């Protein structure tokens, strides 16, 4: 029995060794290498101030090797290198790399948006907010509909608000104008729908409940399927305004226009909770 056990163990060990040796440098192996490099980056960026420069360099070199050996991972690696350079305070080098990469992969809009965001972020880290805003605004206009481009106006407004109330309010106004402009596109276009959602957020962050309620009404009138996501929001806004009748009015108007919508029974419950009289609820 002992001999058989040794035989089993030997087979497993030899097989493991042979398969480890013949492992090819295929995409899967490259992904593993990239994953490890990214983990190292995370560790570095969790505390960049105390990280020795050698670790930054080592990590960058690893990404450079990945770019050389596995071109499909080049874009992600380039962004990672740029991120490292920004944290090393090598801002110009980071921006040059990003500009060069954007040109090289001009066909990839998502990559372009991420690279542009990093360019803006590099100015921000450098302490040059004005340049950062310019870079971010360029991203907003060049990549309309992109998730990152949607978030930027609110991001700018929040940062400005931290510095100065007046400037913050102005940036929120700019953000509102941007989202309003995009919301006026074709209704079927997801950009128009997303723009209304962000418009609601812009009012909500400023605690402009009246305007926020107006936008939510616009959303559910234009996109009735969104009522399931917004019913509680509308109810909450009614309470915040201390005017539940306004939320009730939105619900009642919706029930009248969409009596067969599956959410109608839940809306009737909400109306009751808000203090509306059942007999007033259109059946």
């Amino acid at each position: 029995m002992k001999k058989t056990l040794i035989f089993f163990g030997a087979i497993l060990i030899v097989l493991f060794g042979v398969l480890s040796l013949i492992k090819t440098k295929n995409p899967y192996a490259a992904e593993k290498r990239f994953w490890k490099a990214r983990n190292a980056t995370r560790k570095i960026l969790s505390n960049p101030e105390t990280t020795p420069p050698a670790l930054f360099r080592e990590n960058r070199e690893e990404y450079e090797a990945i770019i050389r050996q596995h071109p499909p991972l080049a874009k992600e690696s380039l962004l990672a290198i740029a991120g490292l350079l920004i944290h090393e305070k090598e801002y110009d080098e980071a921006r040059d790399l990003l500009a060069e990469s954007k040109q090289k992969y001009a066909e990839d809009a998502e990559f372009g948006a991420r690279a542009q965001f990093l360019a803006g972020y590099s100015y921000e880290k450098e302490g040059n907010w004005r340049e950062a805003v310019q870079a971010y605004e360029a991203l907003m206009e060049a990549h309309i509909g992109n998730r990152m481009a949607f978030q930027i106006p609110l991001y700018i407004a929040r940062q400005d608000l931290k510095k100065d109330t007046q400037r913050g309010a102005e940036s929120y106004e700019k953000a509102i104008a941007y989202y309003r402009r995009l919301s006026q596109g074709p209704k079927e276009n997801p950009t128009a729908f997303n723009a209304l959602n962000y418009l609601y957020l812009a009012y909500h962050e400023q605690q402009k409940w009246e305007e926020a309620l107006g936008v939510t009404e616009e959303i559910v009138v234009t996109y009735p399927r969104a009522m399931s996501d917004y019913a509680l929001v509308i109810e909450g806004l009614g309470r915040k305004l201390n005017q539940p009748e306004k939320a009730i009015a939105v619900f009642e108007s919706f029930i009248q226009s969409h009596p067969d919508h599956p959410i109608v029974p839940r809306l009737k419950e909400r109306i009751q909770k808000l203090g509306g009289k059942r007999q007033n609820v259109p059946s």
Partner: protein
Amino acid sequence: MSKKLNTLIDIWYDTAGLIKKYPHLLFPLTIVAFLEALWLEFLYFAPYTFLGTLILPPIRRFLGELALHYPVYLLILPRIFNLGQIFLYILIGGILTGVTVVLAEGANEGKTLSLQAAWKKIRGRWFALILAALFLTLLIRLVGTLPIAALRAGFAFAGRGWLRQALEFLTGALPYIHFLLGVLAQTFILFLIPLIVLDNRKFFPAIGKGLVLSGQHLLRVYALLLLPLICYSPIWYLKGNVNFLVRKTLYPESILILLAIGILATIVLDTYIAVSATLFFLRHKK
């Protein structure tokens, strides 16, 4: 201490003593473990080597392209590995558990039976043993799906009151419910293989007799199984929560190590269960 509890402790103690005195009892299920380890190595190296041409296309077909990328492939590795384990268990696991039961009977009488002798004794019972393994696998699968189906039905009928809250609580406790029900399912068929091998019963009569026997000593048999399975539960829990494991270790290969530890642990666990079931069965027969 009650007599019943004493019997139970005796069996746990005697099982450990028998395995220590006759380590060859571990051998039959080591063969299964060896094949499982080969399967694990095959799966682990598949994306890196020519082995991938065999296994990766069906994975792509059923789980999508993302499943073939690092580290997602390692995250789904326990599921794919489990399929092979089930196949191996049905094909040879039941038969080799039968061999362990024969060896345990001999060891209980102070004899060291050879593997060939034990093998000869179960010849002609292979089909029944394969059926027993299949039956156990299906039962455990069924037990795994029943609580989910019951909860779904419950939620469909529950209003917004206490019943819903109770169902939500049960949903949170689902992994533990699965575990305890899995032990219960095994309780009812624990004696299936000893009955086929030692009592020379055919498959269906063995199920009937096994159910009666387990039913007569339900709590004791349940407790008999529960202790070794609780020892295995950390591995069982981590296998079901590999994301948690990777998040904590930041090392996706830890899944491979976990599965390898699981293979080694099941040699001891399954042998322990088979031997203790044999001892319980033999003592009851007396």
